[in-house]
């Protein structure tokens, strides 16, 4: 909004190569069923019928055949093989499962995967380039030692990118308020705030 620039989504080509490998191994292939894409759930099917969900994760297309009860979080971790997104409370209270859906930060544990058909999902795996260059927010977390055990960190970083892109990282108070959905039991909060300020300033006008 008021922020001069959005954080870059980094190099798409190199990341596509890496996640493409993952998707080929882990995603459930649905052979010859392009017409089924995004037809998740129909009145004439029972609850045992898997819902076919087509979505893009880190710029790669995925077609997942899922029990409709599957959360987006479980789809990412158990079906797409992307375990960088963490399961903390699984009830929307801790923020560890934060990902970007169509560029907005959301809690993947509180969304059913079938609701995300046709959406673009970005996870922590989609941030850095394959040559090891970290996203500015990832680098800032390293620079400021903005974690201890690291479990909440993927969610913190995804939420921080959302927070800056929304224009809610104007002051330290704003950052604390708008990052309150991400709990860090190691209490690395002061360092997290410092990391977000660094990444915010680095990407301004970039």
């Amino acid at each position, binding site marked *: *909004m008021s922020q001069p620039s959005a954080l870059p989504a980094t190099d798409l080509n190199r990341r596509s190569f890496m996640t493409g490998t993952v998707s080929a191994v882990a995603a459930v292939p649905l052979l010859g069923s392009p017409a089924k894409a995004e037809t*998740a*759930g*129909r*009145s004439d*099917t*029972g*609850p*045992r*019928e898997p*819902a076919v969900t087509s979505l893009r994760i880190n710029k790669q297309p995925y077609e997942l055949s899922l*029990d*409709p*009860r599957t*959360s987006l979080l479980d789809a990412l971790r158990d079906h797409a093989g992307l375990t960088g997104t963490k399961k903390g409370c*699984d*009830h*929307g209270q801790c*923020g560890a499962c*934060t990902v970007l859906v169509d560029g*907005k*930060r*959301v*809690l993947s544990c*509180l*969304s*059913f995967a*079938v*609701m995300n*058909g046709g959406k673009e999902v970005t996870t922590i795996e989609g941030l850095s380039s394959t040559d090891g260059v970290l996203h500015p927010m990832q680098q800032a977390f390293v620079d400021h030692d903005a974690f201890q055990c690291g479990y909440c960190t993927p969610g913190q970083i995804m*939420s921080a990118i*959302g*927070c800056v892109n*929304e*224009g*809610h990282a104007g002051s330290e108070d704003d950052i*604390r*308020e*708008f*990052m*309150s*959905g*991400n709990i860090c039991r190691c209490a690395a909060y002061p360092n997290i705030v410092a990391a977000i300020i660094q990444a915010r300033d680095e990407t301004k006008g970039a």
Partner: protein
Amino acid sequence: MRPFVYEQPTNISAAVALASRFTNSDDAPTRANAQFIAGATNLADYMKLGVAQPDRLVDLNRLAEPALRQIRITDDGIRFGALVRMGEAADNSEVKRRYPVVAGSLKLAASGQIRNMASLAGNVLQRTRCEYFRETSWPCNKRVPGSGCAAMEGFNRQHAVLGASDACIATYHGDFAQALIALDAVVHAEGSRGARKIPFAKLHRRPGDTPHIETDLAADEIITAIEVPAIPWARRSLYLKIRDRESYAFALASAAVALDLDGDKVREARIALGGVATVPWRARTAEQALQDKALDEASAKAAAEAAFADAEPRRDNAFKIELGKRTLVRALLETRDMKV
């Protein structure tokens, strides 16, 4: 979680038709076989916990009607489409300028992520977080009608002191609803019996003997829009929320206040209270107590006394009466002192 069939209707009438087809018309919406889902932040959680057990989910996010996603500002007020997300409404510059109490109630609710997910209509329909409602081992008249209330003699620190009944003392935790009821908002709904408008104050029902019936909506009825009337003096308004921690927590006590002042004299006051009642709570006696009075600490205190005159404490929540009064006094004086 109980298995369910997932549906994605693409217009409002198709969504209503689906709900009508798979739901008994006399079912309370919260107990209906087919339930609507939008942001999912409340319903998905309660489905995981077994509190909500729909066997069919009707996803409203593919509905094509553009007005569902628009914030329209007109001479008559602001019309929020039902699927507008909380975060978008909170950040809208006209909402912030014209109705600080609305923007404030949204900004102070939930977290950044949840505000990006949760729809405005879903937010006003959110269900209580009473611990005994959330955990299915306990008796709960709201979850299983007639089973009893574990909160009544339980740990009821977060429970309601206003609007309770012998059957239920669960708090309505929403914030946005307090701003809406204070400003006389109107809800637009569409169902199998047609479209209608519901004054916001009539949307929620006090628990009485039927705490499982939470709203005036039928099981196949969808909120399509929420309209806030034009109130020029609502620029002098705010939402004050007091919590156990500074952010990302439900209110222990909150106050939505809007004031029409002539100098220090109150021409009209609007007051709603959150965190202390079983439903969105308009404090009309407090409003009347301030009518034509000079607003100072004494008159604010008198209004707060009036607001809580009928409060009924339980074992652990008596503190909410004093906290609620002080919250209202502070909100009134801060609203008076706003530079508008």
